């Protein structure tokens, strides 16, 4: 495979480029699901191809091909150069890349069990067992389960001499119970909504998640929601579980710190960011308890944003994003590093597959746990009057990442340190910096989980990649709740 990538680089250089890299990627994926006692979808996929990125006449060009014959690879390089020269017709400045040491490396996701060694029969047996547990609860009208595995092997060669071979595994699973009655549809998911929990691990993740053991409780909650009171509308103290806080980080920290958004490069689709360059090391993003990092290193955990090198050959790093509430860092690339005075890229350029141009993406953007020991139950016990919300149901935020609204699947009212009653249709909304400045407690390491978001979309053509978000439950004061149902 390396020789194919080298062929692409050689062909590009014969056409007068100043920089080139080639990524050859082979992906294998298995996706299984069940629905109310029957197998839903079952598929295996393989995709193989090469993407060639070049700078010619000071501008970028990219071309990709699934055909790895010599003629086709050379043609892809020629097209990349032709495209770059066309780009140069409408340019204001030459592309500048921050220097990066040459890397020659091999790396594979640490895992205990290769998920593809578990048979589809075993996979489906487990999903159908969960499904039976869900449907054993009277009132459940629909049960859905799913499981996914991916193996991505890539060979990255650059004209600067980097030669990186990486193999990444990811695993995900989860389920949802629905209950339709009267004029309401309620649902509960486990361990998270929209596909469950995902990490860069092997099948051991599936075995650790207590999927079967949790199914009955989850289904009972879906049915019980029909008898719960509506979440009130007004201002309240709220506690968010770790999975919801993970998505809150994704939307109101992870996206606005993408330097390409900040620089206007995403203005037509994903939008821009309120985090203009003047705010770096000046903006009070959150309270003193808010510490956020973007960390792609294995030592941070096996997140969907964990790797050894990004897709332009920059080593994985940990970047302080919010430090004791102060905004301290962006997600950057070799092309954008100079705009914030950085000598080196933050190592966040990633592509969905061989046929997509790598772009700045979240790695694992995580809030660090509290340093003082604090469990969720202790946090609830220390709250006189509030609402505890779990598991995302809907999410929306404006194109500069100021105003957000999240809905959760379930909530409980807290009075005098105790959960007193279940609430349905909980939602909360606010302005990003006001929200993070209202955080007055966060649980400690024992409650911290590195959640996976497998479906983050960005770019044109849109690319979907997985991101990681470590979080533990946290408390926020004076938050607007319930406006999702106000007057609608």
């Amino acid at each position, binding site marked *: 495979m390396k020789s194919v990538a080298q062929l692409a680089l050689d062909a590009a250089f014969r056409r007068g480029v100043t920089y080139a890299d080639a990524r050859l990627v082979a992906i294998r994926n298995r996706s299984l699901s069940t629905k109310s006692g029957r197998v839903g*979808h079952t598929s295996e996929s393989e995709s193989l191809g090469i993407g060639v990125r070049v700078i010619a006449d000071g501008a970028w060009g990219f071309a*990709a091909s699934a055909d790895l014959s010599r003629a086709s690879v050379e043609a892809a390089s020629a097209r990349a150069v032709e495209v770059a020269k066309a780009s140069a017709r*409408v340019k204001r400045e030459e592309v500048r890349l921050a220097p990066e040491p040459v890397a020659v490396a091999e790396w594979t996701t640490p895992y205990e069990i290769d998920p593809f060694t578990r048979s589809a029969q075993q996979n489906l047996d487990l999903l159908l067992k969960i499904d039976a547990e869900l449907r054993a609860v009277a009132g459940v009208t629909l049960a859905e389960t799913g499981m996914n595995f991916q193996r991505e092997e890539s060979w990255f060669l650059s004209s600067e001499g980097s030669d990186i071979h990486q193999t990444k595994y990811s695993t995900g699973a989860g389920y949802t119970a629905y209950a339709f009655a009267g004029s309401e549809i309620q649902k509960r998911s486990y361990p998270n909504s929209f596909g469950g929990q995902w990490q860069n691990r092997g099948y051991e993740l599936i075995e650790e998640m207590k999927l079967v053991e949790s199914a009955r409780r989850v289904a009972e909650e879906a049915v019980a929601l029909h008898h719960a009171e509506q979440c009130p509308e007004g201002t309240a103290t709220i506690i968010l579980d770790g999975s919801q806080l993970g998505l809150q980080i994704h939307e109101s920290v992870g996206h606005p710190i993408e330097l390409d958004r900040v620089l206007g490069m*995403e*203005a037509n689709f994903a939008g821009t960011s309120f985090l203009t360059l003047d705010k770096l090391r000046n903006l009070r993003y959150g309270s003193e308890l808010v510490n956020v990092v973007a960390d792609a290193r294995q030592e941070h955990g096996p997140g969907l944003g964990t790797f050894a090198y990004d897709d332009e050959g920059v080593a994985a790093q940990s970047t302080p994003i919010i430090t004791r509430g102060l905004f301290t860092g962006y997600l950057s690339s070799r092309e954008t590093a100079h705009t914030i005075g950085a000598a080196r890229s933050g190592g966040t350029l990633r592509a969905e597959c061989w*046929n997509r141009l790598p772009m700045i993406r979240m790695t694992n953007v995580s809030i660090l746990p509290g340093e003082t020991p604090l469990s969720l139950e202790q946090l609830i016990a220390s709250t006189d009057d509030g609402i505890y919300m779990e598991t995302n149901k809907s999410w929306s935020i*404006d194109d500069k990442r100021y105003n957000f609204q999240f809905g959760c699947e379930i909530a409980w009212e807290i009075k005098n340190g105790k959960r007193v009653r279940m609430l349905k249709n909980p939602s909360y909304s606010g302005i990003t910096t006001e929200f993070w400045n209202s955080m007055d407690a966060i649980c400690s390491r024992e409650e911290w989980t590195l959640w996976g978001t497998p479906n983050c979309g960005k770019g044109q053509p849109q690319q979907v990649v997985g991101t990681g978000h470590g979080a533990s439950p946290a408390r926020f004061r004076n938050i607007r709740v319930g406006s999702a149902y106000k007057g*609608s």
Partner: protein
Amino acid sequence: MLTREQAAGIFDRIRRFSSADEVEAIFTSSRFALTRFANNTIHQNVEEENSVVSIRTNFAGQTARANANQFDDESLRRAVAASENLARVQAPDPDLLPMPTTEEENSGEASACEGARAIRFFEHTAGITPVDRAEVVKRIVSVADKHQLTTAGIYSTSESREGIFNSRGLADWHHQTLAEVSVTMLAPDSSGWQKSNSPDVRNLDPERLAETAAQKAVESAHPREIAPGKYTVILEPAAVLDIVGFMFWDFSGVAILDLRSFLNDRIGTQLFGRNINIGDDYAHPLQAGSPFDGEGVRRRRVQLVENGVVKRVVYARSTAQKMRKSKYAATVGPIEATGHGFPLPNEVGEMPMNIVFGAPERAQDVTEMIASTERGVLVTRLWYIREVDPYEKIVTGMTRDGTFLVENGKVKSGLRNFRFNQSLVSMLSNVEAMSIPVRASGEESFDMVVPAMKVREFNFTEATKF
């Protein structure tokens, strides 16, 4: 890219490699190019060529799928084996039907074009080069420079081929092109946006789109903040398509059977205003896409909503069979395979994706809607729309890139953007006026033929900071 003959040859090899009772292969083959610009410069510029075969095997009630993008014997054998292995471990599904035959594919009522194929391949579009795209971007940048604005956007062109073959003799093929331009114009505290696409690049007018986007950016400068609340809104077609798109997953037989549709217990009722008529018509001259569904069944024209009453939903073959046997059969209107199924196996069944809104009795263009509005909000585009309540069909989202205050029949000023929480059932019951439907494209839903709408009591719940 693959030709039909090459695909047929690959399918012959797949059949030889398979021991399944039935085999199906869906081919997608495309050449795609996209030039992306921002800060008045081209910053990303890509081309891609790829072909994929998706193989489904059937064994007496068992079915599964495997995909590959390499067509050598070893890769195809591996994909066939993967599909067969996944199929064989399943318990037989009594509702799984044999694959359709050519006769079945062509049965049923004819489409709007009486069965004729819509031509959606245009040499002009297929022949666009990187230099052609750069020159168009240069003209868009010139418009930005003229208005002292910053522009960002895309110009993409593609040629794609889709084919389906099965071992019962069905074979079908579709060839099309698509060109798309999207333009954002940015001022210090405002922005404007326009987007358009068509199979024929000659239908696009990038400079007009750029001028309109620029005009919106200029006219919405120094936006005012007004209190959220219920307002009469004028939604341009892109805003309409992005918000209504969230309900069409529910116009599906499987959604009804799964009790996850907002149409459960509501088919045949006066759900929307009497001025709302919605159909699904692949063959409509402003539509795009292939004439067959994920099993190869020819798409049929379906009238979904008539004078505000939901008349029916769409069906894949097996969903129609299940619905006929269900307790809902007498309450859901006509039940027949309509050619809207997704490739099997899947959980969601089917969905209408060639939506065409009916023209109103007396159409008003946006200018007329503004002129007849005492106080309201003109909305260019909606953004980040998500479902809040699945049965009342409440969706939330933001306005974006050109939100204006309308007073006394005139556009008065730009407005800071709003968050809305709006029931689609209520919204489509409160439509006061509509324009002639046009092909519209947004970012939250698939392209549709939709009108601009003037809607009373649209529910804005919060305002943002810009």
